[in-house]
């Protein structure tokens, strides 16, 4: 959830137009053509609505990959509507509903309210919400949520093994149960491998907690001043501030959602990544199989949550963990215990 600052309250200048066709479809006209072709061949159609422009946002890029894979598997078509603010999010969902594709995929907590309204108004339309869910259950709304805490636990284990001071810490956006998924399991993971580890957490807070990297940096500094040398960064845009603080003191940090090692090579050890492509692909299968209306949780077992260090391409990831094969071996063993159900990670969000 701390993957990006909330879509900012943009003034008229920057507010993008409602619909932006993706590179994949070229333009709206092309998308329409694809549509009719699909109708003739009887393939399935999917529409993805993103809360922000996809751009370099790897979290959203993976979602696009997921929709493309689903379209390919079903010999169908896909469209991507990129939003730039709250108004365009609603317009895009409306536009998606108007074309009534087989499944509308929505990524992000931003859509929780609007999808509830639309699902009630259009009971025949199937929705798949990724990384969030509606408060009420609907027969035509399926959800995919992530068990981030499992990945954070593994990152914590890495921190416990790599820490020299025996002190680890975490910087979260806000003190809410959802964000505590990025701090409490980090401490638990570190203590699992090094029982004497002590851990503490700081929350960015303030007027705009998602954007305030200077504040996040100071929070990290206050952890470093107390001797922490491994810091979990779950501070949205503030993560870069945390990396700077860690780098200045020669300490290490852990990123979230995507590979953030490139932002501070030599400082970022590993990342807890969310594989939205897996969630989109499998969610679409569920819906098409007539098993919509359920919430599926993705963790280490389902391959929806992982660490950069446990994925292919770790050598070229610029992550510090690539130099610590011994640590990775132990973390893999820990992962296998979680996957087999032998070890369960406490979820702060359900306490």
């Amino acid at each position, binding site marked *: 959830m701390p993957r*990006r*600052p909330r879509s*900012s*309250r*943009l*003034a*008229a*200048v*920057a*507010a993008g137009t409602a619909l932006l066709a993706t590179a994949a479809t070229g333009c709206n006209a092309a998308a329409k053509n694809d549509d009719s072709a699909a109708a003739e061949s009887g393939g399935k159609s999917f529409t993805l609505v993103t809360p*922000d*422009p996809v*751009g*370099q*946002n790897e979290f959203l890029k993976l979602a696009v990959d997921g929709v493309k894979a689903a379209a390919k598997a079903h010999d169908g078509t896909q469209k991507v509507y990129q939003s730039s603010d709250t108004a365009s999010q609603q317009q895009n969902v409306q536009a998606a509903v108007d074309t009534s594709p087989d499944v509308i995929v929505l990524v992000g907590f931003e859509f929780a309210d609007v999808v509830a309204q639309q699902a009630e108004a259009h009971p025949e339309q199937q929705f798949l919400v990724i990384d969030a869910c509606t408060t009420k259950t609907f027969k035509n709304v399926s959800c995919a949520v992530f068990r981030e805490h499992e990945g954070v636990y593994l990152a914590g284990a890495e921190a416990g093994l790599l820490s020299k001071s025996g002190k680890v810490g975490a910087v979260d956006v*806000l*003190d809410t149960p959802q964000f505590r998924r990025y701090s409490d399991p980090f401490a638990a993971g570190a203590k699992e491998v090094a029982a004497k580890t002590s851990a*503490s*957490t*700081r*929350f960015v*807070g*303030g*007027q*705009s907690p998602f*954007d*305030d*990297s*200077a*504040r996040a*940096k*100071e*929070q990290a*500094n*206050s*952890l470093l*001043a*107390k001797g922490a040398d491994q810091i979990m960064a779950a501070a949205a*845009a503030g993560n*870069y*501030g945390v990396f*700077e603080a860690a780098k200045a003191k020669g300490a290490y940090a852990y990123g979230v959602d995507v590979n953030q090692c490139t*932002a*501070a*090579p030599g400082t970022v050890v590993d990342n807890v990544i969310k594989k939205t492509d897996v969630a989109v692909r499998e969610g679409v299968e569920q819906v098409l199989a007539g098993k919509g209306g359920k919430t599926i949780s993705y963790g280490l077992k389902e391959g929806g949550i992982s660490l950069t260090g446990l994925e292919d391409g770790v050598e070229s990831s610029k992550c510090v963990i690539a130099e610590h094969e011994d640590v990775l071996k132990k973390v893999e063993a820990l992962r296998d215990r979680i996957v087999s159900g032998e070890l369960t990670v406490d979820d702060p969000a359900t306490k």
Partner: protein
Amino acid sequence: MFFDSDLLMSALRALTPILLAALGGAVCERAGVFNIGLEGMMLMGCFTAVATSWFTGSPWLGVLAAALAAAAYSLILAVGTVTLRGDAVVLGVAMNLLAVGLTSFLLRTIFGVQGTFDDPSLAGLPLVGGFSPLAYLAWAAVAVAALMLSRHVWGLRLRGVGEAPEAAATLGVSPARYKYAAVLVSGVLCGLAGAQLALGNVTLFSENMTAGRGWIAVVAVMLGRALPFGVLLAALLFGVAEAAGFRLQGLGLPQQATDAAPYVVTLGALFLSTAQRRRRTGRTTGVAS
């Protein structure tokens, strides 16, 4: 070991951008222009500083460009309030909103990213004695502003323009010129504040990264009654309250409570200063309070 050197350093780092912006606000206030566009001017400074430092490789050019860009941006307020006699509050709010949109838009068009621009090779300001050079500049600016406002003819005229523009005009002082100058000075100072935030406190740009610091500066101007040393004290209060808030989290106080710390401090300080002022005016006019 609650109050130690780390706490002090943290407080002083938090202080610098707020102090620079608040000084600019104080100069405007003295000239009779209520400037609440500090936040937007600062944000323009942040973006220009990062963009210039990135393309030229020199953080110093970044600082210079930030000061110039924010000064140019402040012209909106100068032209709007002085020449066109518009409402300063409306203009200030508009400038703040425009700055968020404009910088986000430029971030996407120039750097092709959204949210945050951060690169390991982006050059930030060097540290001298643990602080960026702009921090020392901020301290010096307090003294210079105090001296100018209380001793120099420009400062006296500026205050005259702020307090009684008609009287100043009859003495041959152009209120418009002084108000323009004051707004431009606040633009330069806010640009420096933005450069300090984006190249000093951190080395990156993220959308809306000023995160309310400009508003805190506006409050500091009021709290310090637009006196340079008063503004310094008010900004220091915020810096210490914020840094102490981080520490209190470490002692187990919830984040929601530590977040409130700067505001509780503001309210307390406002009460105290108002009470003091009322007592004093009561004494001089002989009215029983």
